[in-house]
């Protein structure tokens, strides 16, 4: 019979991107027993996702600059003495019953395990916003973030002729990445105009290195003769069983599609598209921390102080999960969270904490200016939400269309969970993790804003758990069946 094995740490860090790796390292270096949990086989998260360990660079640096940064963070983590649990799926988080602190339940092929700690740093990053359009469920259409995984970690081109669309820095990074890897970019379709990019320039100047890298991407795209359409949106992915072309139209600054003008067409066998990043705050919501809606930060975020403390003692949120601000800021926030956790646990003296945190805060300010400038390109564009056609599925899992959502509101649903109950929107295996933000945006237009529309209630499991893994092997006699109900 497999039973849940219980283990303890001082600080549990959930999520192994830059924020999580730095939090775990910082807490460990400060003398706390820290444990990093991530479902991937190595640290890196979305931005520094490493290729499989069995894949080698043909020459040093061949995997690119991000890979080098990721590698140094992984080294620092290993040196810090932090413990790691990679390849481990956290399926439940809860306040520890009876004890102070938190409990994280994980499962993998070795069975179930419950970790307990008085401090929990949540570093679960962001998910990508992809606003629906006709054909967006066709095979061959992927998120921009998905394209980065293909390029960086899987060493795979998204297609042979790839259209790259959406907004924000990923747009350029992906287009440049495809070209660099020897692929063909069919076109870059940017929601932003030149003046939108110029508007974020002052903030971007805080990181001249990254700015130069972006400029090189743009120059490369131009040099390759790739069509670059600004202030345009993909209005349809065309094809029967897979994408074979896309239709584009000009958009207004708020994303409203100009349906009057003749749509353009680009042939392609893949479309990668993303409309920005949304903080992933499932964990802090399940635990009941206070959140607020902050559109400039990407959506709902946990309220936190300068040391990444949330409203719940012992619970910290670092990185994009607390508001979109980019990789550099995430790493610094992680370090601050790790140090604060160590201090709050008494492992780090107050003065020492202040000394260590001060320079981090200064660097964070600079990193945030850049990150926030980029986030400015990725905010939700209300006109694009308004332009989602009635018959387009919004919930991919359950094929619930925008018209069905509108209908539920017309029948009296006043917030997203009621819409969900009446339409099954968000009840599929992704549990609204893909459509939740869009549904809320659609409902918000009808009920008077995001706060009224609310958010899908976050619940465990954090990811679908295979039943076989959850139950392990057991004897019937050992199931602790509660007392029979009264007759």
């Amino acid at each position, binding site marked *: 019979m497999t039973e849940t094995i219980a283990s303890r740490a001082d600080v549990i860090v959930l999520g192994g991107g830059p924020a999580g790796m730095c939090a775990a390292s910082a807490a460990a270096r400060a003398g706390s027993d820290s444990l990093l949990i991530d479902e991937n086989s190595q640290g890196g998260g979305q931005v520094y996702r490493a290729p*499989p360990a069995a894949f080698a*660079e043909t020459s040093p640096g061949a995997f690119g600059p991000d890979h080098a940064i990721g590698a140094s963070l992984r080294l620092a983590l290993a040196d810090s003495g932090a413990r790691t649990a990679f390849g481990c799926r956290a399926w439940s988080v809860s306040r520890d019953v009876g004890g102070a602190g938190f409990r994280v339940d994980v499962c993998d092929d070795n069975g179930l395990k419950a970790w307990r700690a008085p401090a929990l740093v949540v570093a679960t990053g962001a998910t990508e916003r992809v606003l629906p359009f006709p054909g967006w469920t066709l095979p061959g259409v*992927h998120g921009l973030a998905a394209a980065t995984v293909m390029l960086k970690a899987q060493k*795979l081109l998204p297609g042979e002729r790839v259209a790259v669309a959406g907004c924000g820095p990923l747009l350029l990074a992906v287009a440049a990445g495809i070209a660099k890897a020897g692929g063909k970019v069919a076109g870059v379709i940017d929601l932003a105009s030149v003046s939108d990019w110029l508007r974020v320039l002052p903030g971007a100047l805080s990181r001249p290195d990254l700015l130069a890298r972006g400029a090189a991407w743009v120059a490369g795209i131009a040099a390759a003769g790739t069509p670059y359409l600004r202030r345009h949106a993909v209005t349809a992915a065309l094809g029967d069983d897979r994408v074979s072309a896309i239709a584009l139209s000009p958009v207004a600054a708020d994303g409203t599609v100009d349906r009057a003008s003749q749509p353009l067409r680009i042939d392609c066998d893949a479309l990668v598209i993303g409309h920005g990043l949304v903080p992933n705050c499932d964990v802090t919501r399940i635990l009941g921390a206070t959140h607020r809606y902050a559109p400039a930060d990407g959506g709902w975020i946990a309220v936190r102080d300068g040391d990444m403390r949330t409203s719940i003692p012992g619970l910290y949120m670092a990185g994009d999960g607390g508001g979109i601000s980019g990789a550099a800021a995430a790493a610094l926030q992680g370090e601050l969270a790790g140090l604060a956790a160590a201090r709050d646990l008494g492992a780090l003296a107050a003065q020492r904490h202040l000394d260590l945190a001060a320079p981090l805060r200064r660097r964070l300010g600079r990193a945030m200016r850049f990150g926030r400038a980029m986030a400015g390109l990725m905010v939700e564009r209300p006109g694009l939400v308004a332009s989602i056609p009635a018959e387009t599925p919004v919930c991919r899992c359950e094929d619930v269309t925008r018209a069905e959502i509108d209908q539920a509101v017309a029948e009296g649903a006043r917030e997203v969970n009621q819409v969900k109950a009446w339409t099954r929107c968000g009840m599929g295996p992704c549990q609204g993790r893909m459509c939740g933000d869009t549904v809320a945006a659609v409902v918000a237009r009808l009920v008077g804003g995001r706060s009224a529309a609310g958010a899908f209630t976050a619940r465990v499991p954090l990811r679908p758990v295979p039943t076989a893994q959850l139950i392990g092997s057991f004897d019937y006699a050992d199931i602790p069946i509660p007392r029979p109900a009264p007759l």
Partner: protein
Amino acid sequence: MSRRIEKGVQRPPPVTILVDGRLVPAFPGESVATALLAAGYVAFRKSPRAGKPRGPFCMIGSCQECLIRVGEVPVPACQATVREGLEVTLGGTQ
């Protein structure tokens, strides 16, 4: 043209996985989604309500669109790692 990027990367020797009983070449360590896409599979399943073809979308285990079975266990193909002889069934869970 192969969709696998050759530039700058040295892969281990290939293995084969079994996809609906068909032998498909793959590299150890890459995800099953990658192996399937590289082998020309586009749709992995149909959506249960509308019956529309679906393939990998998010590649990070969130969207569940690339759901397959490894043995009996349903798992997103982007979260399953290739190893020699892995038996994969397409078609999701329905």
